[in-house]
């Protein structure tokens, strides 16, 4: 287990926080940490910034994230990792498609490689870290396109050579099913699943026998097309199969 001293905690909106910290770790865009909140839990978190300035960006969801959000500058943040495979580098014209906090995982890439960013959330209050040139979708129409980010993106899909997607699994399944391009060679999705070990042995995050923590979190279009559990079933903490609600 490693730890870093917290440099800063930024409140991005009502429920989304960024923790900045120094580290000597070697990490690449798309990788994640298992962040340990002693006395509470250990949770997987995407790195939202890599390099001179490391950061995680997360939505307050349960006890662990609540505790993390209440930590102070100078306190220690414990973690192990980075784990998972990075996003491959882009070729040609690039699009980033983010649903909700999926944007956090894409940010290190967005800052490194030019591209068009499509980001969506329920309402304008759920959006975070927006740049002026982001293409925005909100389900209630309070900002940008009214509808979900998949609706917004599929109209423009043909323009791009490389596409990176990160968001809720149902949203990513919907996008996978609606993509109509002929070549899918450079389309990458980063999955988020309940994870316990982060190192490929507990089987909690497996989709059709592929471990999101070890063989992912980034999968290609072709890989996901063959996984009939993707976006349809997930596992609870006991390993029980649960149905994922579909995107309307």
């Amino acid at each position, binding site marked *: *287990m490693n*730890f870093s001293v917290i440099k800063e905690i930024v409140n991005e909106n009502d429920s989304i926080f960024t923790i900045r910290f120094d580290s000597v770790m070697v990490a690449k865009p798309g990788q994640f940490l*298992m962040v*340990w909140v*002693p*006395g*509470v*839990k*250990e*949770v997987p978190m995407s790195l939202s910034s890599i390099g001179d300035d490391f950061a995680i960006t997360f939505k307050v969801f349960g006890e662990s994230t609540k505790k993390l959000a209440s930590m102070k500058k100078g306190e*220690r943040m*414990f973690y192990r990792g980075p784990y998972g495979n990075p996003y491959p580098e882009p070729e040609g014209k690039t699009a980033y498609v983010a649903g909700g906090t999926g944007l956090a995982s894409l940010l290190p890439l967005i800052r490194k490689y030019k591209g068009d960013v499509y980001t969506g959330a329920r309402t304008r209050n759920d959006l975070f870290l927006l740049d002026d040139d982001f293409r925005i979708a909100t389900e209630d129409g309070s900002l940008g396109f009214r509808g979900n980010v998949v609706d917004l993106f599929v109209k423009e899909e043909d323009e791009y050579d490389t596409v990176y997607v990160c968001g809720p699994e149902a949203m990513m399944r919907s996008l996978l099913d609606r993509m109509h391009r002929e070549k899918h060679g450079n389309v990458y999705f980063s999955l988020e699943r309940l994870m*316990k*070990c982060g*190192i*490929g*042995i*507990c*089987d*909690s995050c*497996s*989709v*059709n*026998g*592929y*471990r999101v923590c070890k063989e992912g979190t980034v999968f290609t279009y072709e890989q996901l097309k063959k996984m009939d*559990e993707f976006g349809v079933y997930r*596992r*609870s*903490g*006991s*390993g*029980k*199969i649960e149905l994922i609600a579909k995107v309307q």
Partner: protein
Amino acid sequence: MVSISTSVGDIRLSNPVMLASGILDETSGSMKRALESGAAIAVTKSIGSSERKGYPTPVVSVIATGMLNAVGLANPGIDSFSEEFSNFPVKEKVAVSIFGKDTEEFLYLARRVEGLGFKILELNLSCPHVAGVGSEIGQDPDLVEDIIRELKSRTNLQIWAKLTPSITNIVTIAKAAEKADAYVLINTVKATGVDIYARQFLLSNKIGGYSGPGIKPIALRAVYDVRKESEKDIIGVGGINDWNDAVEFFLLGASAVQVGTGLYYRDYGIYDNINAGIARYLEDEGFSSLDDIIGLMVKS
């Protein structure tokens, strides 16, 4: 080509390497993948009569000599397990691991497993980190004897008894389990660890099971001690990362081996590594089959 086939109880196996219970065996997709990767048998995560979420994370911690875990017998329960595995394509290559608090619960689960069409049952008499089951059952010789007698007389399943090393003398429990078709030696060793900067236990449950390279000598000793006292087939498990490790177990009397934590170090290639390595070793050393070396160092 020398033969690496072996047998355990009434089961004939094309190779001697199995996936141990508790690692990459919660989902049917991963069970299939283990078998496709060369495992002769894949043992399921231990299944109980009702759903258990297990302990909060952290449930796994990698240490210098292996790994600590206290997953807490997370499992979907026998009903959900039945739903997911009722159409599993190669049921003869699956051993279903079960845990229970008493003879009745073991018998109930065994009948459900037999009803699904599986042939092999592994009894978890050895999980070191959940109260009232696992090693707490597995330290009571009378209870172990009763459970196995009932299961053998009321089902036609092959019964493998997985025993705990966290006991004064493992031979005492092995004798109590002598009506089983095979012993599985050993489960993880009861253990703990501390993060000195957080000043917290590494596992949320504080106490867990120790696995990986560091426990191989303990497992080998258990296999050797039991082999000296019994002719029953033994499946060796504990710290096996490659074929050298497996051969040690065979020489001391194991007929087959299981790998678990080894998958962390070697991933799915571990089955081919071990199987190919054993074949090469047998050939290089002038043996014609795996049978020739099983218990070679124990036979008088």
